[in-house]
């Protein structure tokens, strides 16, 4: 009899743990863009190869991107961004690791848009900072997408902008996140 019980418990055990895996969503082509606005020049750059993982149960949310996958309208901007500002060969990736604080209020079985708060560690240019950012989770049928926009200051991440170009690069950069997740 006890063998039967063990099997039963094992089944329960596996069943209890499997939803964790079943509720992990991911994307390999999320989009993060940023925008710098000054009187002299507007700079916008796009990265469409953002990796992100979202765990619906725990609210764990992670992003990872390659800095050299940002594309700019002008080739010279892209080179300067990687060589002089981001130092992409030294710091190839920017990452975010955090949680959706209020994940529990979301009903994933219904379509809808849920405003949420995300808190965690943003790492850019080798510097990690704790941030809290408002975002949105959008549920539409089987699809889950996440979006957010926030401001980041280059000086917070030890990115120095020389005075000669300081009137062309904003002190505060608008960052926009857009990810459409699929089930793992």
């Amino acid at each position, binding site marked *: 009899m*006890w063998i039967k*019980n*063990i099997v039963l*418990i*094992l089944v*329960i*055990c596996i069943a*209890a*743990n499997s939803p*964790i*895996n079943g509720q*992990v969503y*991911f994307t*390999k082509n999320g989009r993060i863009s940023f925008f710098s606005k000054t009187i002299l020049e507007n700079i916008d750059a*796009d990265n469409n*190869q953002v*990796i992100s*993982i979202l*765990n619906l*149960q*725990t609210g*764990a949310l*992670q992003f*990872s991107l*390659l800095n*050299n996958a940002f*594309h*700019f*309208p*002008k*080739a*010279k901007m892209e*080179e*300067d961004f*990687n*060589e*002089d500002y981001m130092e992409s*060969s*030294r710091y190839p*990736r920017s990452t975010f*690791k955090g949680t959706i604080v209020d994940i529990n209020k979301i009903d994933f079985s219904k379509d809808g848009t849920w405003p949420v708060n995300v808190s965690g560690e943003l790492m850019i240019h080798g510097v990690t900072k704790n941030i809290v950012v408002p975002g949105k989770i959008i549920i539409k049928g089987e699809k889950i997408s996440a979006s957010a926009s926030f401001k980041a200051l280059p000086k917070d991440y030890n990115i120095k902008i*020389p005075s*000669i*170009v300081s009137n*062309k690069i904003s002190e505060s950069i608008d960052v926009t996140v857009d990810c459409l997740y699929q089930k*793992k």
Partner: protein
Amino acid sequence: MRYIKLLLIIVLLADLFSEKIAAQDTTNLINQLEKETLKDKRVYTVATFKTTRIVDGQSSENLPANVLDVRISHRFGPVSSGAYNFFGLDNATMRLGFDYGITDNFMIGIGHSTYQKTYDAFFKIKLLRQSTGAVNMPVTVSFVPVIAINTLKQFDSVKTIFSDRTSLTYQLLIARKFSEKFALQIMPTFIHADNISFNHSKQNILAIGIGGRHRISKRVNINAEYYYQLPDTKASDSRNVFSFGVDIGTGGHVFQLDFTNSAGLTEKSFISETTGRWEKNNIMFGFNISRVFQLKEKH
């Protein structure tokens, strides 16, 4: 029953740590995805040199597509000409050039030098690109042919035709960026000299160049280049050219401050017609200004 108890405890523990395990899971998963995406991505090495020239000669760098580069290069007279000529600054030669990137791997350029009233034109094509990731390529290889036409008026007694005034230079540029700080380039060069610019003993000259870049700060580089002419093809009064310079780049502009023993600014003149000697202070100070314009935005 003992086993069941034990199992229950394990299940409880697993539940207790499930959150932690899940967080671990996402980290492992993201690491795995990062690796996957890197594996099938070819990462090209960029900015091997700061501009499309090392000092006078071509570097393996190409202009990106739709980018126009206006280049003004000055060379003053030899420092050895003394205080009367203000150490060379009273005499200046210059080249005005326009380069344009057709694609990221193919560029063209035209220019005019006051030295021998020379017009020149070239194209540069990348045959191989240094990369890592999906394709591991150790070097960048480019091919550059240059045509230069000396339009200086000749004495009436000397009749010249177009081909007498025309020289051709073919170069292979083999470059490798070893680190963020250091890049090296080797340039096998073949020159077919014209008949009027210089007293060449042989019209076909072979040379091998070596050039390098050392980055001393984010925006400042030291560059140097040397061309060695094979002794049996070299004209007897021609010297091998050695040049070095510092370049300072600031968002679209690059300034280069150079010292060289050559007055000429086109390939055939600085590689095969240099007469200045470093040991006799026949060196010239010069500067290049490059300004790029993106003529068509990418998106």
